[in-house]
């Protein structure tokens, strides 16, 4: 149990996928203007990542094996694309407003490097099934956490007297940098 907890803490804080590994920046910058959208994006990504990690483990372990290792990336992409497509349908049906706010970023979860990165890291780290799931979920929760925090700051900064040339994405990048700087404080907590 402790190791799962450690995996969670490690992926959420210490090795945060966005802040420390600098993966998944596209939705991080794109869907963080509004808090609700960020929460929705986080939830969708968590769903996709957890499911994707499990499915990719099963595929890698039972279908591919060492013989077909060259198919790893290809099959992962196919599976993830399928799960994203499924998520998109569910979101469109259950929450049209969220579907609208997420817009192009919802199908783009497919190409979110964090989403492909985590299953690949799982393979690399030789995680077992449960570890893969926790690793995927932790990564996604970390992603959601920083997305939501970042969206909070960006919503507040809407009213700030930011110099014109820094308005919008520029100051968001600076903020992301400073957040990343802050997350370095976690370094060394878990090896």
């Amino acid at each position: 149990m402790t190791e799962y907890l450690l995996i969670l803490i490690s992926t959420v804080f210490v090795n945060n996928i966005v802040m420390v590994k600098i993966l998944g920046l596209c939705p991080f910058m794109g869907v963080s203007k509004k808090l609700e959208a960020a929460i929705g994006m986080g939830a969708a990504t968590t769903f996709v990542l957890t499911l994707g990690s499990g499915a990719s483990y099963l595929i890698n372990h039972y279908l591919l094996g060492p013989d077909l290792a060259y198919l790893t990336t290809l099959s992962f992409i196919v599976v993830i694309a399928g799960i994203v497509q499924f998520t998109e349908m569910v979101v469109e049906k259950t929450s049209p407003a969220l579907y609208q706010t997420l817009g192009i970023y919802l199908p783009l979860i497919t190409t979110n490097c964090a989403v492909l990165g985590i299953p690949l890291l799982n393979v690399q780290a030789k995680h077992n099934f449960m570890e893969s799931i926790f690793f995927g979920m932790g990564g996604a929760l970390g992603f959601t956490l920083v997305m939501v925090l970042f969206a909070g700051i960006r919503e507040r900064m809407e009213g700030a007297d930011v110099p014109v040339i820094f308005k919008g994405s520029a100051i968001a990048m600076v903020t992301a940098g400073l957040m990343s700087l802050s997350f370095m404080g976690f370094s060394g907590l878990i090896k």
Partner: protein
Amino acid sequence: MRKLNHFHGGIHPPSNKTQSTQVAIAHAPLPSKLIVPFHQHAGEIAKPVVQVGDHVLKGQLIGMPDGFVSSAVHAPTSGTITAIDLQLIAHPSGLPNLCATLIPDGKDEWVERKAVDYRDHSQPELQQLLRMNGVVGLGGAAFPSDVKLRIGKQKIKTLILNGAECEPYITCDDMLMRERANEIVQGAQMLRFMLDADEVLYGVEDNKPEAIAALQQAIKESNLNHDVVAIPTVYPGGSAKQLIRVLTGLEVPSGKLPTDIGVQCFNVATAYSVCRALAHGEPLLSRIITITGNVRRAQNFEALIGTPIDYLVALGEALSDTDGYIMGGPMMGIPLPSVHVPVVKATNCIIATSAKLFPQPQPSMPCIRCTRCVEACPADLQPQDLYWFAQSKEFGKAQKFSLFDCIECGACSYVCPSHIPLVQYYRFAKSEIRAREHDKQLADQARVRHEFREHRFEREKQEKADKLAAREAAAQAAKLASTQPLTPQQLAEQADLEARREHIREVAQSSVENTAVENTTERTGN
């Protein structure tokens, strides 16, 4: 001793009230000209019922209430109406509004006054009497009193008479309570009768011991079961919602009225004018006004509605370095666009300002979110967040942070170390939101009308098509009846006929759709 409650926040600005309480209320002499605005109350403007050149008597109706929330306007003295036009009034916009100009004849001749005994009349009758006598709230908002008495089936437990007068400088209610407590108490009794209230409470701040004593004396003399409560002096203790909280412990729910929790609140001066209107048949023609600030003789005057303010400040002898005038108190008053604007029913105080008395505020700095405003806010708001959203025009968020629960008391601005004109930002945001809601309503209305029009077109087209189809079907049937083979000549004839018909149909169609084309040709032909 009644157990008092508290509201959050509040401030203790220097009261500056003693200057104007040294001498008794004086009657301002009759000015040479009166300007009586038709819109002195909250709600719809009154409709003028006199004409230029008319001679009117004191107390004669000149503005008829128009709409549910509206009130009557009367001639404050006898004389001649010389103009009914747009004049500058005391309004923060500095824009003019409809006023009647009255040149007094000096006789001060009354119309026939009819005193009534309130106990002989039904509540609707009394409400109508107050409405026609132009009785409105004299605390500042000038809300028609009759509307506040239309409570429907709600049970009123507590009637509160507001004598808190929490704003610095203003002493008109204080002096009225000291000198005319008897009529206030009688008026309160009438209001109690109309509301069928269980108890009557007077909320008076404890910095007015003379007023409290006078009220208690008057209550004892009239042998009534009213209760005068001394409340702690804290601004804005005289704001209705805060006063209700202090006296009853109840909070008026956001977006609701005090009557929803069984309380109704009137200013003591309103009670006084209710008494004058019912027991003496006198409409609201004059009121007590504090002239203070940068003047030699700070004093309260009973002045006629419509008295130009320069006339009043002359009575108070404004000092030479006076650089402006404020109507109301220094916390919530409005700067006057001109010193010639008239006194209205809501005018409780005129403060002459000078650079020495009210030094220019320091330039405003950015908000550092020190939350002193939060500590001062009597409505438990987050003024720094409201400001943040108002200055960046994020109105939706401002509304979510309860912007409309702000009572604009100015306590936040008073304590702000950055000297930000916070209330101005809130007013700006509120009025933008209201304008947007109004636009939205208009747009929805336009959409409905447009859709209706489209629908009508569709229907007309359908009807026409149906008619045409019916005719064609009949023709087809006829053709089928005569089934002889046709000669080429006959066929050509038929085709020709068909073509002509088609042409006629086209013409008919265009004339129906565009009758106007005919009209114009007709006209030009003529």
